[in-house]
């Protein structure tokens, strides 16, 4: 058997084993089914939450899409600019790092206070969550461009804009893509937190309500649904990444 097959087998077997142990311990009463629903019940719960959960997921994803567009539209160009203009970088970078480091959860109450309940705070908070990792990664990517390549381009007579266009931008593609990948997870995270904290709709609100209602099976099903959506997005971005930075080893 090839190693790839063995590994695939091991992965499937482990997932099945975890599910089996989980199912068995729930049935045997080792864990309180009120808190941990067995997989078989969770599977059925997908049907129970069904359409309502999908609508909630759609709501969350729509907010995430707006937040993500804002974060990317602002973060990538700003990151490229800060990264490539030395003077701006020196002045601004400490602020970016500080704002990146501050847990955004601390400003969450304030944002909800300002923007109320509903869509606006979720979008704003999601965008803030995504913006800083994007900025930090893009700035880092631009700063890491091999200076030897810039020298080569200069020796061939490249003008500043040509250096930007033909060297800095293509060299930054991997870090921009990495920032897009990280950014979407962070935006979704931000939206979900607001929905949990002060939501009236959306998946975060649903998860919270299910937890407060001690509906473990539905809660697990809903959690799996959001997780699958997020993993799907990241895998799609990974595929795009693979395609656009095929020149890397």
């Amino acid at each position, binding site marked *: 058997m090839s190693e790839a097959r063995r590994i695939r087998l091991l992965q499937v077997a*482990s997932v099945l084993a975890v599910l089996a142990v989980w199912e068995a311990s729930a049935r045997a009463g080792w864990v309180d089914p009120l808190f941990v629903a067995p997989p078989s019940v969770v599977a059925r719960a997908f049907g129970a939450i069904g359409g309502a959960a999908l609508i909630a997921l759609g709501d969350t994803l729509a907010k995430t899409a707006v937040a993500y567009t804002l974060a990317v539209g602002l973060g990538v160009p700003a990151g490229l600019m800060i990264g490539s203009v030395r003077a701006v970088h020196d002045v601004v970078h400490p602020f970016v790092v500080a704002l990146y480091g501050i847990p955004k959860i601390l400003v969450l109450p304030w944002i909800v206070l300002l923007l109320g309940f509903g869509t606006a705070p979720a979008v704003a908070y999601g965008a803030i969550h995504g913006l800083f990792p994007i900025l930090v990664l893009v700035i880092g990517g631009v700063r890491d461009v091999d200076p030897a390549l810039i020298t080569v381009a200069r020796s061939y007579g490249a003008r500043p804009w040509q250096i930007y266009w033909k060297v800095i931008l293509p060299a930054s593609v991997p870090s921009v893509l990495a920032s897009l990948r990280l950014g979407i997870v962070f935006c979704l*995270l931000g939206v979900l937190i607001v929905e949990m904290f002060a939501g009236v709709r959306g998946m975060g609100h649903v998860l919270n309500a299910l937890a407060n209602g001690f509906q473990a099976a539905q809660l697990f099903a809903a959690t799996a649904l*959001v*997780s699958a959506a997020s993993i799907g997005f990241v895998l799609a971005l990974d595929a795009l990444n693979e395609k656009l930075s095929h020149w890397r080893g």
Partner: protein
Amino acid sequence: MTTSAFRLAILSGVLALWEIAARAGNPLLYVPPSAVLPSLVNLVALRSYPDLLEHVLLTAREIAVAYALAVAGGVGVGCALGGHRVLGRAYAPMLAALYAVPAVVWYPSLMLFFGLDAASKIAFGFLLGFFPITLAVLAGTRQVNPHLVTVARSFGASPLAVFAKVLLPGMLFTLVGGLRTGLALAVIGVIVGEVLGAKAGMGTLINHAYGLFRTADYVALVLVTLVLIVTSDVLASLVERRARRWTT
């Protein structure tokens, strides 16, 4: 010189704008910086929240436990996956996929399972800290040049010696970076947990102050929490610098 002047200008500009905007606006929503100082004094003097210290200590304790668990789990799992090729190739991609899930989706389940006390915060802090540490250990073990292991073995190094003299120094750089990120995330996990639902701790106080529209107190509490966070990060960075000096 001019750089720091610009930085100072930006900082004071933001503060001034904030002050002006806050004075013009609704004082419930906007707190001018000048109003924060008295609140901060009241807070630190234990006048506005007499039990502040208990909350700080609770949060710090939750963080410490969550982080300790995350380090133990992360280093253990990371070494296991990094040291065993088949295990690594089977489980590392699964871990990476789980890492792509915004962690907060797990929190309601943890809250359901562990209740509203410290346990759910610790569990969430652990979860957040565990991933970066595991992935850093994994990356670290992969980053060590296998040729160096061969070289050490050819000089008769035992497996233990290979680990201590080749693997550990080789991955230390990545490892301490992961440990520091792990701490930052464990801290965030605990505080997010406290804000989203808890009975005590800094996050709860913040939530409470906001709920009562005590916005100046809210900002003061945020500042105190930031001090807690920055302290933990400074400690981590000292350890990190120490370790890096040791490696070079």
